């Protein structure tokens, strides 16, 4: 056995003090940052007149905001060893519920609270089924994906529900700008910061890593694994509720067709960001970088007037390449 314990002094030197930008320099994020920079260079070279404009960059961030909020929740669920396929449908249901005429009568604040409650409630149902009903997360959230979308269709009668002008405060989130940036981007940023704090600075985050990394060890160490699992799905639902408000603001509608296939984009972003699908490892920053890479690709394809099918192929390739690179990275660091 090559005993790593005996490698002593040299290895200890390798552990350096983290600098202020350490999170960027960390090996696991470095590749993602490089990829992002490369994509930006591609944008600058192919469309110098359109890419680096404020309006384009703002539209990239607005586009990223909705899925971005969902991705934060998905990161928690996946680090915790689960998966949530129902995020897109949950968001659609929350957007429909919040924009029914009955809800709209109470004004924008109640609409926002309604979206958040519906999202959290849906997540809580997922969590109960998985943690206490012992359903496999894949199956429970797949069922919710289908059922929530069905419920959204039924509530809206498959019609797009427009936000009335006296509830324009919701729409203002996308039209009002602070320093040239729409408010919804600030909401996205706030969710990312809060998510990062929750994951890295609280017992909740610590337990998330423990439950995903080794549920048996977590249980024997006295952590209530079931309750925590349930809370993770509720958190994911809460993020879907917030995302519903953002998409309502951007599209001025609530609709059962919102968020179609968002679950795939969110999961892909989390994976590209280096979170293990088996749980126990991952970062919020990585997921957000992964999401920005995805959004940037979409943007580049649109700017260059390329085929959307090619865009999907490119995204598929990126997922595979990212995972292959990370695996090599893991091997190199293994003792």
């Amino acid at each position: 056995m090559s005993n790593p314990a005996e490698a002593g002094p040299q290895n200890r030197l390798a552990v350096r003090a983290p600098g202020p930008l350490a999170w960027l320099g960390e090996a696991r994020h470095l590749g993602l940052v490089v990829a992002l920079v490369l994509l930006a260079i591609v944008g600058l070279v192919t469309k110098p007149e359109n890419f680096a404009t404020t309006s384009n960059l703002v539209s990239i961030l607005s586009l990223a905001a909705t899925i971005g909020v969902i991705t934060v929740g998905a990161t928690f669920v996946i680090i915790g060893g689960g998966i949530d396929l129902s995020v897109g449908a949950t968001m659609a249901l929350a957007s429909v519920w919040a924009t029914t005429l009955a809800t709209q009568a109470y004004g924008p604040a109640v609409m926002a609270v309604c979206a958040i409650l519906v999202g959290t409630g849906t997540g809580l149902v997922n969590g109960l089924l998985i943690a206490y009903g012992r359903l496999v997360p894949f199956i429970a959230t797949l069922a919710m994906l289908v059922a929530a979308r069905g419920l959204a269709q039924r509530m809206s009668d498959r019609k797009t529900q427009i936000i009335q002008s006296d509830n324009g405060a919701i729409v203002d989130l996308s039209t009002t700008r602070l320093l040239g940036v729409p408010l919804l981007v600030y909401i996205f940023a706030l969710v990312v910061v809060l998510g990062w704090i929750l994951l890295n600075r609280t017992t909740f985050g610590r337990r998330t890593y423990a439950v995903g990394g080794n549920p048996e060890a977590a249980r024997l160490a006295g952590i209530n694994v079931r309750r925590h699992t349930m809370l993770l799905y509720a958190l994911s639902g809460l993020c879907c509720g917030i995302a519903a408000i953002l998409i309502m603001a951007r599209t001025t509608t609530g609709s059962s067709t919102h968020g179609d296939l968002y679950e795939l984009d969110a999961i892909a972003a989390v994976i590209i960001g280096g979170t293990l699908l088996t749980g126990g490892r991952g970062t919020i920053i990585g997921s957000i970088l992964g999401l920005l890479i995805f959004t940037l690709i979409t943007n580049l394809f649109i700017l260059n007037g390329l085929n959307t099918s090619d865009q999907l192929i490119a995204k598929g390739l990126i997922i595979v390449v990212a995972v292959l690179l990370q695996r090599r990275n893991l091997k190199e660091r293994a003792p």
Partner: protein
Amino acid sequence: MLVMRGIVKQFPGVRALDGVDLDVSAGEVHCLLGQNGAGKSTLIKVLAGVHQPDQGTIEFNGAQVRAGSPIDAIRLGFATIYQELDLVDGLSVAENIFLGHEHARAGFVNRGAANRAAAAVLARLGHPEIRPKAEVGRLAPAAKQVVSMARALSHEARLIIMDEPSAALAHDEVANLFRIIRELTAQGVAVVYISHRLEEIREIGDRVTVLKDGRTVAVGLPARDTPTTEIVSLMTGRNVEYVFPPRAAEPPGEEVLRVEGLGSPGAFADVSFSVRAGEIVGLAGLVGSGRSEILEAVYGARRASGRVLLSGKTLRRGDVVGTVRQGMGLAPEERKAQALLLDQSVTANITLGSLPEFATFGWMDRAREKAEARRLVEALDIRPPDPERPIKTLSGGNQQKAVLARWLLGGRKLLLLDEPTRGVDVGARAELYAVIRGLADQGIGVLLVSSEVPEVLGLSDRVLVLREGTVIHQGDAQELDEHRVLDMIMDGRAA
């Protein structure tokens, strides 16, 4: 028929086999004896083609052979029935019996032929009532054992290796097992039989080979009339001297754990004992004697009848979270699978059991967490002394120290240690023993389980000897020796 000479098998950190000889004749039942860790399982796996020996030769029917893979071993005519049954629960009885050598033509399985052949083999084993089409997962353990045996027979094996075949069987089923073994040997099949139960070996065995610390210490003893004392002293007399810390001078404090009439069907029954503050109580017994199951039940990780009281308060059964909150901690048997977050730092692993202690309203005080982890790393001399290092880069002994450190936080009253030195090399053991004694000296009660009898005797103040789920002896550790404990465990006589 089978001659093994000088078999050596080296694993990282341990020499599992260090020159083993074995002679098995056709038509005999050859028993393999030895304590846990003596190398029996490794030797079987060499025969089954799972492990390749580093040195040594294997001759079979006069020709030198090499079992490079399990398939090679089967082709040679070696069949193995493992202690942990290796059946596929979702498949039928017939499919399991012929797994890997299906009755098939061009990839299509001929199920009719397979079912008929399976029925014939099962009838030969005296179990025509097991239906070839039944799903194996729904069978009782004894029936699974028969299926496992049927699989070995279906290979036309000439040498059958049985690792603790009676462990899962009731008494009358053991008689049936012996009948089958006698039929096989009458046909010239050789059987290598491993069991801890001496009375079985006396009944079915012809000759005995004893292993100790990876070496053969006796070859071909007559199974029926070698005295028990001789066998036991061959198994014990060891070379490695353990260094145990001195016992506490003061008498133990008040009772922290009280167990009353604890029972769990099929595992153990009517177990009662207590542990006092500052006292180490050891459970000695073989694998399957119920020792680990008792620990699990005390911890609330296993449902059981009876009562468990911690400092006079009855614990709710099956509630690990509550049990930990009341001040109990467990260092489980499978360190990697049950205790560690391998990807996380030493610090995160140490504080896992007492996160609320470091948090106000969920917000972690990371500076205090780091300081506490550093203090414990230094106190227990965890090497390398870097709390931020991923725990998977530490050696087994240092990982175990980190698990112990976890329960030094949060004011624990009682610690349960299941095989605390498993996978820890001999040099690091003495350090762990000192750490464990140090825990007790701080007033923590310790309940210890180990398959190594000298470890239990050397470390504990009091010892409970277990055999097949019952406590057969309870007393002061210093009044016992390894010899007597093994006598009790193997012969079932309370001293």
